[in-house]
């Protein structure tokens, strides 16, 4: 179940188990996510997709009752090992949510927010301008917002907000981008635009994207992971999965026989 490639790995988990209190949400997850490609993750509601994502940037730990066994390597380093600095993990692993959640500050400050968190020395204004432009260029938002960088981020359309939420991760040069149903709050046009953007980022970042939209998974990912009830059932090239699923459960889900 190691995927199809022999390429370097962005995320590699071994025997990852996770409990919320006494409820086990993840079972022995062994998953290898390749670098520089887009991997989509599908599966019925409640199967643990978000939980998996949240254990890759260790945000789950904020809930006092979460217990984890096994290991998660990001870019070859075990992030659950002693001496790992959480702030560095979160810098390397950016997260995009279902509902765009730009901060209630200006567009410019949103883009610079994580940069400011992670750099101690003062940058010149010119340097900051450059960072803002570069990040917004990468998410195809620069031309739209370049004249209103001081406007509130919340005044943008949902699609633009979601792009901004991706943009604000980029200045600190993350290795991995996790996206939890990034398009499900958007209309079809917005979905298309954000999908296009994600495809645009392919190669520069390793992207793991959760989606309920089969068409999206099929269109916009290299590899696909199917999860069911806390377990990984199948992980193959997206093309193969949708044409010749190896597993009956996968086939059933893809054909819409699960919720």
């Amino acid at each position, binding site marked *: 179940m190691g995927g199809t490639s022999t390429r370097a790995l962005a995320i590699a988990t071994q025997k990852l188990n996770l409990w919320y209190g006494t409820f086990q949400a993840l079972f022995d997850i062994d998953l290898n996510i390749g670098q520089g490609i887009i991997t989509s993750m599908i599966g019925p509601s409640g199967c643990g997709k978000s939980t998996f994502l949240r254990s890759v940037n260790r945000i789950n730990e904020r809930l006092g009752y979460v217990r984890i066994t096994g290991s998660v390597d990001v870019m070859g380093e075990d992030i659950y090992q002693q001496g790992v600095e959480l*702030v560095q*993990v*979160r810098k390397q692993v950016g997260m995009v*949510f279902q509902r765009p959640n730009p901060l*209630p500050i200006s567009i410019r400050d949103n883009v610079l*927010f994580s940069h400011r968190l*992670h750099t101690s020395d003062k940058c010149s204004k010119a340097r900051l301008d450059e960072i803002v432009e570069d990040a917004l260029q990468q998410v195809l938002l620069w031309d739209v917002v370049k004249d209103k960088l001081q406007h*509130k981020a919340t005044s943008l359309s949902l699609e633009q907000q979601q792009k901004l939420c991706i943009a604000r991760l980029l200045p600190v040069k993350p290795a991995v981008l996790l996206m939890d149903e990034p398009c499900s709050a958007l209309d079809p046009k917005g979905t298309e635009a954000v999908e296009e953007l994600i495809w645009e980022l392919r190669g520069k970042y390793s992207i793991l994207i959760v989606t309920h939209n089969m068409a999206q998974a099929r269109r916009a990912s290299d590899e696909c992971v199917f999860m069911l009830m806390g377990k990984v059932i199948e992980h193959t090239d997206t093309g193969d999965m949708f044409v010749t699923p190896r597993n009956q459960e996968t086939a059933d889900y893809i054909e819409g026989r699960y919720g």
Partner: protein
Amino acid sequence: MFSATSLNRKNDRNETAVRWLLGGMTGLLVLPVVVILSVLVYKGGPVISFEFLFTTPTKGMTAGGIFPALLGTVLLVICALLASVPFGIAAAIYLSEYAPDNWLTRVINLAIINLAGVPSIVHALFGLGAFVVFFRFGTSILAASLTLAIMTLPVVIVATRESLQSVPHAFREACWNMGATRWQTIRRIILPNAVTGILTGVILEVCRTAGETAPILFTGAAFFLPLLPQSVFDQTMALSLHLFVVSTQVPNMPEGVPYGVALVLIAMVLIMNSLSIALRMYLRGRKKW
């Protein structure tokens, strides 16, 4: 097809009756406020003058002004604020942003709510025992304002915590996921957005404090002091106690004086209230989401 049925007409009559009933009761509520204010202005208005506000009382308080009491109330309020606001805000931030959700936190929250319900005379006795006697501050501005501070702390905490909680959780998530520490999140996102509510809460607390009599009665307020306080260890006059004194304790008091004192006290509270509302509107205009 579209003409009214008898049921429609009955519903209409009920609607009108209910509207008038509710409106009438609201009107009755406003009445006392209007009466109190007009009596105060009518009877107390003529006494108010520059002299009344800014000179000391003379002739056994039947003449002269109320400056020591006015100043005393302002001083008490300011000192109480200085003591309660930092502690209240710190506690609220801890409870809202740091405290784990366990039984201890719930007990603390419950204690704070109950503290807000403790009668002010009980706070007065506590202040007497703790600040006047135990800490040996004597009856003084310090002891009185600390008593006021303790009394108003729960309100400050609750108001602050509520405004912190009203900042959407998604902002915290966003910050944490970018690697912000709790404090960075609070400092850069939560506090700037909660400041409106916090300020309003604090100013409302001030209003409450200005009118209180019981907590300062045993701890620092004086019946009559011809001299202005020199330090926080001196006693002071206060408007609320002064009102009581001129209304009931002094023979041959000109009729207008108690009304004048009451008017000044109410005006102080109203001014602070309007300030807080103005501030809230100004800040809400700049609200960021």
